[in-house]
């Protein structure tokens, strides 16, 4: 919030001045704000910290009373045990493979479509965009039954195709990129066209580089969504070698009591969070801005 300039202040009545002076007592207010924030943040952080703490305790310490708030003797071997669980690394690999494949596919199909919709005047554009927008509001969960039957029909159950192909088109990503591509100044595109550049050249050399933040944020959000998804992999995978991390984790809880301890479970959960978390911290600046930007500009 900007402070009023001196010119304004001098022409104020004494009452107004008093209000301005009062409003300048920012530090005290800030201290209260930050303390309130810290308290709430501590509550929010608690489950994450407890997860990390438990993942470093020994199997006996987990059940100690009172609990160990800080793992003074961290059992790093819990992470090795978590990683060594049968198929765990395969689950991680599967999740990353499908999320990356989906994101790359979506970026290709959506940037092509978004470019045409934002920048190419063509007959039937309204119909094409209408079709895309019509699917925007369909939640995937509603389509899982028919999609499951289609996968059965294609003999794709328990294959990568079933996990990847249905999601290669994304109305969300297309819509998002249309908004972004429209903000590229027309003058630049006109100049390129004058020089004889084709649409493909303009898209890959001008539009995409200029819209990098939007591309990264949509990629990030869709990566997180598909990496984290449980429902679809749960119904389309059958063998251990095809399961993803979320599905694999649910099987590990189901096996609880027959070997998997809480500390191993927490270590597995932390490992499962890691890829998305790493991506988030690498590109935090883009993601938080991008997330807000296009979500509202509907």
């Amino acid at each position, binding site marked *: *919030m*900007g402070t*009023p300039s001196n010119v304004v202040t001098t022409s104020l009545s004494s*009452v*107004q001045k008093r*209000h301005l002076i009062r409003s300048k007592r920012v530090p005290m207010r*800030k201290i209260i704000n*930050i303390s*309130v924030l810290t308290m709430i*943040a501590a509550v929010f952080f608690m*489950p*994450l910290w*407890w*997860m990390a703490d438990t993942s470093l305790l020994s199997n006996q310490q987990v059940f100690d009373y009172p609990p160990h708030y800080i793992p003074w003797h961290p059992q790093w071997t819990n992470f090795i045990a978590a990683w060594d669980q049968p198929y765990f690394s395969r689950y991680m690999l599967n999740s990353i493979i499908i999320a990356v494949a989906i994101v790359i596919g979506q970026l290709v*199909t*959506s940037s*092509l*479509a978004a470019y*045409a919709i934002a920048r190419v*005047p*063509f007959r*039937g*554009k309204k119909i*094409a965009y209408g079709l*895309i927008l019509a*699917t925007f*509001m*369909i*939640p995937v*969960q*509603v*389509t*899982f039954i*028919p*999609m*499951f*039957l*289609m996968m059965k029909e294609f003999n794709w159950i328990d294959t990568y195709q079933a996990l990847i192909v*249905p*999601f*290669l*088109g994304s*109305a969300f990503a297309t819509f998002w990129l249309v908004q972004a591509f429209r903000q590229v100044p027309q003058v630049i595109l006109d100049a390129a066209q004058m020089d004889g550049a084709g649409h493909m050249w303009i898209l890959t050399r001008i539009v995409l580089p200029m819209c990098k933040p939007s591309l990264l944020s949509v990629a990030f959000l869709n990566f997180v969504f598909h*990496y*984290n998804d*449980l*429902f679809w992999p*749960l*119904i389309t995978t059958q063998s251990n070698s095809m399961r993803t991390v*979320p599905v694999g984790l*649910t099987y590990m809880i189901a096996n609880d009591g027959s070997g998997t301890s809480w500390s191993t479970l927490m270590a597995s*959960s932390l490992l499962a*969070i890691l890829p*998305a*978390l790493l991506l*988030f911290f690498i590109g935090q600046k883009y993601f*938080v801005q991008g*997330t807000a930007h296009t*979500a*509202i500009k509907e």
Partner: protein
Amino acid sequence: MQKLAIYSLTFRQKNTLIGWSFVLPAVGLLSVFGIGSIAYVLYLSLLRWNLIDPTPTFVGLANYNQLLHSTSFLHAILRTLFYLVVSTGITLPLSLFLAVLLHEPFRGVRIFRALFFIPYVAPTVASAIAWSWLFEPHHGLINYFLRVFHMPAQPWLGSPNQAMLVIILLYVWQFTGYFIVLFLNGLQNVPVPLYEAAQMDGANRWQQFYRVTLPMITPTLFFVMTMSIIFSFLSFDQVYVLTNGGPADSTTTIIYYLFLQGFQFFHIGIAAAVAVLLLLFLAVITYLQFKGESKWVHHQM
């Protein structure tokens, strides 16, 4: 210009060809898996079929009739409504409050924003496992705290009255950070001069929030509310991991009901009918949102 007019016809044809070939992959995929699925699910909802029968029986609207007369389904609807009202009722004010606090810059503000956003990034399954450990009746941290304050330990996920509460808290924890980001963006668009004017008029902080901030962010407010309702409506992972719909069906929401019917009992027709009803409900919400938005949106730019 004159020259361009002569070539414009071929230009347009060329553009149409290019336009459609660019759009085709996305439109094709979305037509098959999006629109095709909706058509297919409508058809399936008219059948009685358990996947094993080679030939499904056409039963018309019997599935819908059966659903609307089934107490377990009606209870699932009521439970879902309760869930979405309470979870949105907590998440919305909380995230708005935190966004207002996080809006003013201070040293370390980004750490706080990241901290609230992490639960949204983490896989729900992983978070839910952590929550089931926190709320574990014998050794969980929550019951430990209760004992420290001389309160009786609770069964939490083992109790039909408390299991839903844990699921709601998990939802609040997961989505608050996402909604904070949306609110922060809304707050950024409130023109600073409005606050200055309000200050001149002697408005205190609460009045500034109530008279300036709130009216100016109504579009965001409305958007976040719709998103929250849809997200909670479709919450599946939380229920699947924490409670499996139990105890005694106390956490069987509509989406979980759909999962049970479709993929546990293989009542394909019934599950398809649930999906259609779900879609109808979401269509109504979306329609209301668009109608509401045209009423609320302030076009400042």
